[in-house]
């Protein structure tokens, strides 16, 4: 018996890898998503996301409806932040047609888009807490999100799928008293951000659970095309509202919060989460400035075309939604229906990097990582 027989043969003791199936019907996959997780014990070695359970042929369908009729379908892509999606489509179409909308329309669009950004981030924060086991913050976030939905119901009748921002304008003006109600909401909402911080952000258990977990380095994020709060969480200062200002975002004074690694490594789940909390404050700041400056007089229908028939050509335009760069590539052949419409989904790119960042972590951390990416399956599958 030599000493050789006593050396550890790793391949002999290593067990078989197990394939674990998460979803498609699972509450923490944020929709109908199936993750095939290959695990070694409890360590994840590979994740393959299988998507397409919510596929609705959005892009093909758009080729069969007129340009106005695309907007209800755009609503249903990112159903958490419909206003921002409408906004992106309207900006792309106006660039294609060369329409200049009135000042008032710009302000209305910015206000509703930022309000919807707050609502979307509140949902992201709440469900992220839910994923890592904190139920209470979810209820507090939804309490305040409800107020924004009430404002939107007052504005356009719908609570989730608005069809409010149209090509060349908005469907109708603010009702009388709406501006005051938004002010009232902002006054109510600003102190509540501290409440979320106390409840969840600086909770030691939450920090231990999320900081340093699922680190997304900046170079990996850029090479995967990740954008929005996920990219800013990795410490990259990139925000289309600042870097490529569309609409009237260059008129406002706001910061771009980035992940600093205050609780661990830059780019961890906690950084991505905290960027969203800080963006709430920035959105409040933008909304306040827009409310102060909005012109009281003005027609919101002035640039609204009777029939949308853009000239031959193509356009790629991108805007900043709560999830990142939402791009629209539209080819027009001069007919009232688009020849081709491609949507560049920010949630899709965020999901695509999950194998890169979740490898080597425990199964429970995969749920936290998925929650911190804040994906919307309606947009990924579209």
């Amino acid at each position, binding site marked *: 018996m030599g000493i050789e027989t006593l050396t550890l043969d790793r391949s002999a003791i290593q067990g078989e890898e197990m394939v674990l199936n998460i979803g498609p019907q699972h509450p923490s996959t944020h929709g109908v998503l199936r993750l095939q997780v290959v695990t070694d014990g409890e360590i994840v070695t590979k994740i393959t996301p299988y998507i397409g359970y919510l596929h609705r042929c959005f892009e093909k369908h758009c080729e069969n*409806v007129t340009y*106005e*009729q*695309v*907007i*209800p*379908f755009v*609503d249903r892509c990112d159903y958490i932040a419909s206003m921002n999606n409408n906004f992106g489509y309207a900006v792309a179409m106006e660039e294609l047609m060369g329409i200049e909308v009135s000042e008032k329309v710009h302000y209305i669009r910015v206000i509703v888009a930022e309000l919807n950004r707050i609502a979307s981030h509140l949902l992201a924060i709440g469900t992220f807490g839910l994923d890592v086991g904190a139920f*209470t913050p979810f209820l*507090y976030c939804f*309490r305040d999100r409800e107020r924004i939905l*009430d404002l939107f*119901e*007052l*504005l*356009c*009748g*719908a609570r989730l*799928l608005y*069809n409010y921002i149209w090509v060349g304008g908005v*469907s*109708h*003006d603010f*009702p*009388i*008293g709406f501006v005051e109600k938004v002010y009232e909401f902002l006054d109510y909402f600003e102190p509540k951000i501290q*409440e979320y911080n*106390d*409840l*969840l952000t*600086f*909770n*030691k*258990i939450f920090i*231990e659970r999320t900081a340093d977990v699922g680190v997304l380095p900046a170079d990996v994020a850029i090479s995967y095309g990740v954008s929005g709060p996920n990219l800013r969480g990795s410490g990259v200062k990139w925000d289309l509202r600042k870097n490529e200002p569309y609409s009237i975002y260059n008129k406002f004074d706001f910061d771009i919060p980035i992940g600093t690694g205050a609780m661990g490594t830059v780019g961890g789940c906690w950084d991505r989460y905290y960027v969203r909390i800080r963006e709430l404050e920035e959105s409040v700041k933008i909304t306040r400035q827009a409310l102060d400056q909005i012109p009281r007089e003005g027609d919101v229908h002035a640039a609204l075309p009777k029939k949308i028939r853009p000239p031959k050509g193509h356009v790629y335009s991108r805007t900043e939604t709560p999830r990142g760069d939402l791009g629209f590539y539209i080819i027009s052949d001069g007919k009232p229906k688009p020849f081709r419409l491609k949507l560049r989904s920010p949630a899709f790119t965020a999901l695509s990097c999950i194998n890169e960042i979740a490898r080597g972590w425990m199964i429970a951390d995969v749920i936290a990582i998925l929650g911190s990416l804040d994906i919307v399956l309606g947009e990924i599958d579209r």
Partner: protein
Amino acid sequence: MIRYFSNIWQSITTLLIGMRITLVHLAKARKGIVTLQYPEERWPRPERNIGFSHDSYNVIRSRLHVDMDDCIGCLKCERACPVDCIHITTVKVEKGTDIPEANHVGITSYGTQKRLLVTRFDIDMSECCYCNLCVYPCPEDCIFMTGGPNSSKQEIDYEFSEFNRSDMIFRFAKVPKDQVEKYTPPPKEKVKGDVAG
């Protein structure tokens, strides 16, 4: 060792900070912040008649309703619908005359003389996506969502679940069943056209 105990200390203090918020919330608990017992009580809908100077803005999403006495059969709503849930059939009739046996009124409330008799106006509310796009192009303002600014015309109706899917198709045309055939164009013409073509 110090780290171990400071971690425990931080966990307890930060938990207590969070607990304080929930306790304050509990102390402030009053009627209205707890779950609403839905069928008995309903969340108040926002007041929309707040001095809006424009009546044509239809800012509510509920069941679609059509005022058939005003409908001129122009098909604008059918064309605007992105999901094709509106189906209209029209027949040419004498301009501006009433046809009592078909419940047809010749002149709309806006004073337009009707040229067409609408024999079929079906809206499949199970397909409707509540986008409101059909409401805006209507020249006679006869298609609208119930309630809200239109509550004088039709009471709000947003709870219209049915056991059978076919019951979700709302048929608005007023022409009696036995009269429909009378107004359906005879199929002979179609054959003629085909031969000529």
